[in-house]
């Protein structure tokens, strides 16, 4: 087990190194001045100072070495080009907390409600609760998230005037984005858990348990749910890292100052250092979450324990 984890961590570091390097060179290969429109307005000397400040006057390999050295030794991703003096690492950490709160709540409610609906649907197969749940699930999968968000804003803000559309800081600001975000999660889990449960319920060991006279409640609780929930952990992995990168669209629409919001605005601003930093940060979260999920999975499921 320890050997497996170490091996995985090794691969993870290689992956992150490749991603950081690729992102760096890709962003630096873009034609045009990194200062963008600002470069034309500035006098020669100020421009040279800017270049010196960000190390843009050095050769590409030198810039890369400095960047990597700062990243590895200090975890420092440099400074924003657009907003001088703003440290990218600090910005990322503050923003990811904001995204974490919204996304975490949405994921929590999404999983709890989705799993409940999935169980209800599986236990009432081909009866009205099943059809109702599957109808909700299909809506959740097919309605684009921005449409859902627009609809919520329209109903709760314009029509009924009970909740604010945008803003951050008060609990009531959280309600709409969390609902909009968890709708898709509910749909995914309801569908997935239902089909898993039905599959498990068709297994021979369930028949054996029934034949032995185990009560329906215990069969569902001890055999069906345990086995049906395991594969759901795999999807959970991607979603946990998605919490912190945030839903780009939702954060933009509701004006939540999270990672996704800043990522989109740094793209629109062409703030190159910020784009590099956010990409690496998001990739790191993603890779770490995947590793954790794999470890949890091997711990929970004795069948795939590493030989």
């Amino acid at each position: 087990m320890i050997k497996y984890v170490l091996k995985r961590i090794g691969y993870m570091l290689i992956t992150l190194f490749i991603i950081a390097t690729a992102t760096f060179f890709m962003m630096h290969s873009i034609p045009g001045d990194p200062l963008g429109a600002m470069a034309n307005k500035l006098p020669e000397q100020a421009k040279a100072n800017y270049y010196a400040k960000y190390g843009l006057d050095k050769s590409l390999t030198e810039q890369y070495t400095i960047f990597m050295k700062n990243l590895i030794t200090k975890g420092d991703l440099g400074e924003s080009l657009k907003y001088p003096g703003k440290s990218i690492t600090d910005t990322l950490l503050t923003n990811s907390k904001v995204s974490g709160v919204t996304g975490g709540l949405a994921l929590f409610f999404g999983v709890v409600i989705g799993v409940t609906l999935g169980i209800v649907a599986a236990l009432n197969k081909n009866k009205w609760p099943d059809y109702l749940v599957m109808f909700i699930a299909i809506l959740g999968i097919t309605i684009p998230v921005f449409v859902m968000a627009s609809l919520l804003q329209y109903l709760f803000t314009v029509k009924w005037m009970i909740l604010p559309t945008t803003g951050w800081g008060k609990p009531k600001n959280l309600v709409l984005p969390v609902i909009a975000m968890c709708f898709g999660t509910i749909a995914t889990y309801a569908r997935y858990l239902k089909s898993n449960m039905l599959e498990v319920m068709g297994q021979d060991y369930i028949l054996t348990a029934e034949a032995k006279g185990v009560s329906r409640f215990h069969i569902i609780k001890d055999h069906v749910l345990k086995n049906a929930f395991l594969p759901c952990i795999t999807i959970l992995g991607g979603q946990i890292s998605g919490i912190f990168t945030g839903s780009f669209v939702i954060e933009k629409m509701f004006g939540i100052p999270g990672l996704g919001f800043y990522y989109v605005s740094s793209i629109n601003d062409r703030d190159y250092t910020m784009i590099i930093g956010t990409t690496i940060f998001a990739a790191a979260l993603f890779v770490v979450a995947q590793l954790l999920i794999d470890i949890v999975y091997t711990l929970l499921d004795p069948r795939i324990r590493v030989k």
Partner: protein
Amino acid sequence: MSEEKKVTSATEWEDIPAEKFQIIGTDDFSGDIIARPKVGYWADAWRRFKENKIALIALIILIVLLFMVIFGPAISGYNFEQMDTSAINQLPSSEHWFGTDSLGRDLFARVWQAGRVSLAIGIVGAVVASVVGSIYGGIASYFGGIVDDIMMRIVEVLLSIPYLIIVILISVVTDSKSIGTMMLALTLTGWCGIARLVRGQMLQLKSQEYVLAANALGVSPFKTIMRHMIPNTIGIIIVAITFDIPGYIFSEAFLSYIGLGVQPPDTSWGALASAAQQNFMFYPYQLFFPSLMIALTMLSFTLLGDGLRDALDPKLRK
């Protein structure tokens, strides 16, 4: 009652004199004669698919959508780019079936014109990704050993980068907002999932008895691949394509929504929805139509994929 009858009939049988029987000879091959016309894989799959009413409806919806996307702009009688300042933000009417937008452009024409871009991206993206992924996965599983190891490690690295981030990064780096670049960005890592799928299936097939039998009989590797490996993999590839198409359409909608996708004068469902979202509070119908098309397409492809999976791979059927 029935038992009694059997007994009587048995006694009747015994009454028949032996000379009434006659030996007509035996035909060793009579058991092997195929009495019914042979049902091929595709005919069989179609027979199973037809049973699935939901999938059939999804297929019909998709055909209608495809028809409208091809002929819709012509039916509307308006050019999708043509502005009319005397008729801006009009509600759906007999003149403009889906209404007009803030520049007075006919939305009926625009929705179908946008559908061309969205559907093209979805279908071409999924097909390109599948072809690349199948070849990659096929090569990896065929050679096995160290080649397989290295090739799959590369896939793992590519898969460990969040998909949307790659797409965004490529769009930023290339900075050209043509549909071609977007397709490249979308498919750059999109093929990895299919490569894994195909490799897994191929490895599984390689250890099947009938492949072993074919080898033992001296069938050439090429013929084994053509005759056994590909036909047994094509089903899961088709299903994967069907499930991937809505994913690409959604990614395109998302990219256009945050301003990295299709640029005017071209348009797509995502771009239309994005434009309509700005004044959604006042003109909700402008958001309704493109969203409806996205939802219908996603729904139909998902249901069609479910149906195809059941039809093409009966082993998965429950």
